[in-house]
């Protein structure tokens, strides 16, 4: 492996490539990235919320306050995971845009980093829109809420990076549906998104807390509801950081392998 240098211009070109592509598909991103999670939050928050009298065991004033931040960070996780599968494979092999990019001065490591930056940027944007709707619903509790879109972006990258490492090592999309539906989706549903993880057996809790979704969701919930504790928050951030850094390293190696002729 040659020395890793990440040139900002190269990174920007990869991000710009995606911004330009999105000019043709923004409606779809808005539907799947913004409207879909907002409907999920409202249907469950208001619908199930109307059947709940007392949410003190969840630690919030109402169910919407619990489920809103859960769905915000959870769907960022979901989108990060899905984008790292088929859309990444498409750029790497099917459409092959990235094979052309590495014929320019842009390196495989820069392609991967730009790719993850784009995911982060997209999630920052869509989570901001989600956050506005959520805050209209439950009211402003804490100025930490302003950090939430960045937490959502980190949550998305914490799952996208390791899955990109997997995708880059595959020739076909066999097994993708399994990862999406047996790893990413269950983590979205079970990581304290809709209910307290304390209601699960200890072994299940341990598995859930190993993965990053739970930590992104907890951080988001703290920040939205103004219940932040510095120690716990740093702990959650550290877990996200470990997944991002380890995933990034593995994905750089994978992209270098996939993009070297």
């Amino acid at each position, binding site marked *: 492996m040659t020395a890793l240098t990440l040139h900002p211009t190269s990174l920007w070109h990869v991000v710009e490539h995606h911004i330009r592509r999105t000019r043709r598909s923004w409606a779809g991103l808005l*539907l799947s990235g913004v409207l879909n999670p907002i409907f*999920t939050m409202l249907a469950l928050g208001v*619908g199930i919320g109307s059947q709940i009298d007392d949410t003190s065991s969840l630690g919030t004033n109402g169910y919407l306050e619990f489920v809103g931040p859960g769905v915000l960070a959870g769907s960022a996780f979901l989108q990060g995971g899905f984008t790292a599968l088929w859309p990444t494979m498409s750029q790497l092999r099917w459409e092959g845009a990235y094979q052309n990019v590495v014929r320019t001065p842009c390196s495989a490591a820069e392609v991967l980093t730009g790719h993850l930056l784009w995911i982060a940027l997209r999630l920052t944007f869509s989570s901001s829109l989600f956050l506005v709707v959520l805050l209209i619903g439950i009211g402003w509790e804490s100025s930490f809420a302003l950090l939430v879109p960045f937490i959502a972006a980190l949550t998305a990258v914490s799952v996208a990076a390791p899955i990109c490492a997997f995708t880059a090592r595959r020739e076909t999309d066999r097994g993708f549906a399994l990862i999406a539906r047996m790893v990413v*989706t269950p983590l979205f549903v079970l990581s304290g998104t809709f209910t307290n993880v304390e209601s699960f057996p200890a072994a299940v809790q341990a598995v859930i807390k190993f993965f990053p979704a739970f930590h992104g969701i907890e951080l988001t919930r703290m920040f939205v509801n103004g219940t932040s504790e510095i120690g716990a928050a740093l702990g959650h951030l550290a877990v996200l950081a470990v997944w991002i850094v380890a995933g990034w390293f593995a994905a750089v190696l994978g992209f270098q392998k996939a993009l070297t002729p």
Partner: protein
Amino acid sequence: MITTTFAVRSVVERNIIFFRRDLGILLAGFLEPIFWLVGIGIGLNSIVNDVEVAGELLSYREFVAPGLIAVAAMNGAAFDSTFNFFYKLHYLKLYDAMLATPLTLSNVVSGEVSWSVLRSTLYASVFLALTAVLGLISSPLAILIIPVAALIGFCISAIGVFSTTFIRNWHDFDYLSLALQLLFLCSGTFFPITVYPDWGQALVNLTPLYHGVELCRHLALGTVGLVDLFHLGMLAGATVGFGLWAQKRLEAKLLD
């Protein structure tokens, strides 16, 4: 000349051979509703109030479980009749190839729909067995959920294929995914539709999954009544209507 049975069976067989290589995808379809049952139905059971259905008070997990059987049936049919159907139609050109054999268009459609119905029935049956083991089913009438699941699969296939004939590219599937997500969330699956205002309840009555959810719930409880004939009629009507319309649109697409 070949018989219709042989023709339809060969289309179903192609799907079976295809999925035999990727059993994981079938397995994932079984498990997905289970995650929702655990994450919401069981996870929130102690917090959500008991729900009244047909005069009986149900714990929240007993309320959610039968609805998720209907969802399992919907999921079983939804992917094959939309995403996979589009891929086969426009990319694989599978149907052009099939029509170059003695198969007719109606054989091909019947075969594909039969496969979807099989998959729906399989998903719903496994999930029904699981909910019964968990003690969430209280009536032997629940066994009738299996044919109802087949009807749900039939109905979703017909609507799915019909919708897919309008789809131009992969981006259009985002609309379809959103529609499926709304059906999943708002069809009385997780909360009773009495939460909605009157116009909202009228709207939900026009959607397919709601009728499936109600039928499964009533059968699981053993509180079947006249209203279930209405639910059956709506599902059957939508199946026939959209099925015929889909066939018309496909004829125009494939036979010219």
